[in-house]
């Protein structure tokens, strides 16, 4: 290659590098980007982690209750069947028609209840499937945060104007521990106390 061509190419490369530098500087001074990297993206990760915890607790709580109900249903069904047998053995006259019907229905219904409880248990599988999706989004958010921070570091961002605080939004959604929630109250008692102060 000729020296002239080398010289032209070098000038071009310098120009491109300079344009890129300017573009990046303009990019990073935008306070929104700093806010994203320092507050919103880490917040997003906390929120997703909280969702995982919430769904796990709810699913386990549901399964606790199902596991308590199953033996109750089983026992009721068994006792109903036992009474039906006893009455059969003793002869029809010993047991009134409504009572016989009740026992029969009880045995059948408890079977249905037991079946439904098993389905409720299986349905808690949603927590695993949704949790796997949430985890993959959290990985994405982590990578996004790293990329943003790296971008800001490269462009050596100055403190943006105006100085950024936690994002102010009118509707924050459910309280997530660890995320600044401004003026959120901390429970039903606080709500009642507040309304009471307002005269309600």
């Amino acid at each position, binding site marked *: 290659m000729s020296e002239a061509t080398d010289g032209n190419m070098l000038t071009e490369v310098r120009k491109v590098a300079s344009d890129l530098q300017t573009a990046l500087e303009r990019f990073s001074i935008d306070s929104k980007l700093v806010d994203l990297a320092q507050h919103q993206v880490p917040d997003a990760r906390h929120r997703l982690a909280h969702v995982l915890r919430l769904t*796990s607790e709810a699913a*386990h709580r549901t*399964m606790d209750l199902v596991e308590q109900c199953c033996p109750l249903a089983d026992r009721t069904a068994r006792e109903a069947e036992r009474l039906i047998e006893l009455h059969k053995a003793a002869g029809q006259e010993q047991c009134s028609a409504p009572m016989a019907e009740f026992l029969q229905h009880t045995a059948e219904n408890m079977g249905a209840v037991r079946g439904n409880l098993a389905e409720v248990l*299986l349905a*808690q*599988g949603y*927590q*695993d499937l949704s*949790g796997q999706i949430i985890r993959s989004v959290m990985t994405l958010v982590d990578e996004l945060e790293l990329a943003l921070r790296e971008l800001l570091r490269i462009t050596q961002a100055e403190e943006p104007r105006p100085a950024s605080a936690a994002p102010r939004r009118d509707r924050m959604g459910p309280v997530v521990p660890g995320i600044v929630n401004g003026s959120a109250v901390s429970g039903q008692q606080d709500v009642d106390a507040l309304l009471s102060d307002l005269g309600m």
Partner: protein
Amino acid sequence: MGVQQNMNFLVVDDFSTMRRIIKNLLNDLGYANVTEADDGNTALPLLKNGNFDFLITDWNMPGMPGLELLKQVRADKRLARMPVLMLTAEAKREQIVEAAQAGVNGYVIKPFTAATLKEKIDKILATQSASAA
């Protein structure tokens, strides 16, 4: 059939809710001995030092994924013939083929029904006792 109810199951999944569901289903089928592990990494030493008869494992786990656990089990002289059922949301054709080539005995896709789990376990046990006979 009575002998089989004493079988020792190891259930491996990184979600405690899923482990609990599978444990309950196994109990309902009459299998009372169910141990849990939350990853291939915690499962492997349990398998090597324990006396398990059946492995049910997820695929997608952060430490050691289920496929790797399966390969480690098949590579271990003492564990090589253990029945392994993969129970996972991973549903790509290539993955199922990969698991089959690595020596999995059954593959169940989430979400699943109690009936499917029973069917696959029964099928694996039937095949095992047929080949042992």
